[in-house]
């Protein structure tokens, strides 16, 4: 028996209009049509979504976990990149 697995797809769900799609999991499917349907069946059974994206996992280019030090650590001591040194007028709220 042929035991080759169906390709892996990553699933992104938008829970409400105006929000971003968020990664919620993955699944196996032989084609895009079934990947969308399975995403609907597996991840939106309890009204979690209003929109679904699926993308073949192999098409996602990911950063190297071993490169964390050079990629992300240098930002740690550059506090001037945060807009926290401005004095806001009292009338400007929710910034």
């Amino acid at each position, binding site marked *: 028996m042929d035991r080759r697995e169906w390709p892996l797809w990553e699933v992104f769900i938008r829970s409400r209009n105006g929000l971003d799609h968020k990664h919620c999991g993955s699944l196996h499917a032989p084609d895009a049509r*079934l990947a969308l349907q399975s995403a609907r069946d597996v991840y939106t059974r309890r009204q979690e979504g209003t929109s679904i994206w699926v993308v073949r996992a192999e098409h996602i280019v990911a950063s190297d976990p071993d490169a964390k030090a050079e990629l992300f650590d240098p930002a740690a001591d550059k506090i001037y990149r945060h807009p926290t040194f401005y004095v806001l007028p009292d009338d400007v709220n929710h910034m």
Partner: protein
Amino acid sequence: MSVAIADDLRAAHVDYLLRLGDSALILGQRLSEWCGHAPVLEEDLALANVALDLIGQARLLLSHAGVLEGHGRDEDQLAFLRAEREFRNVTMVELPNGDFARTVLRNFLFTAFQREVMTGLQGSADAALAAITVKSLKETRYNLEHAAGWVVRLGDGTDESHARIQRAVDELWPYTEEWFAPDAGDEALAGAGIALCWSNTRGAWTDAVTPVLEAATLVIPAGTAFRSTGRLGVHGEHLGPLLSEMQVLQRTYPGATW
């Protein structure tokens, strides 16, 4: 409409609701047998979702039938305390699941039929029935889309998958004839604006299923004289064992709730 005619129609009306409701219930029960056994996790959930949609439709239809019948029977009594001959489901849905190909092919054929019937019932003079079909149609459209995808995928797939689903077509196709046989009750209800004749859906149903079967490279078998009779209450050998499993709890502990 005189009261006498209305009374005459009521029996046919209850029957009509039971045919739809029982067909949904029995197919839902069959599909739930796949729970935990489907070929892949994703399809396990998909089939369970379809089963739950069907059982939900059955609840609405049987509840409505029980009220109309006027003997005080609710959905549970109709589902769990009727005998085999009182069930009005079409014969195809009581057949064993067989393999996955046969399961999805049955879903495809029957759901396409359900869609045509429900589409015609949205304007029913029976406001409750119209409302039930409007709600159910959304589920039915999705379930049909899902099943149709599988029919093409398997039919136009490997030699093995093609052979299996072609065998399913050959075995199940004769059971579709029952759906389109003329029926006096249907005609009376159609005349009153309550229902549509199932026999009138043959053209639309054929137009819906044929392109999918062709895309799946499947051959539709020639017609035969065989006519199943489930909707008349005369069933095959498989409904009895299904009911004994489905009804065992209420039969053993009548009135049990939890």
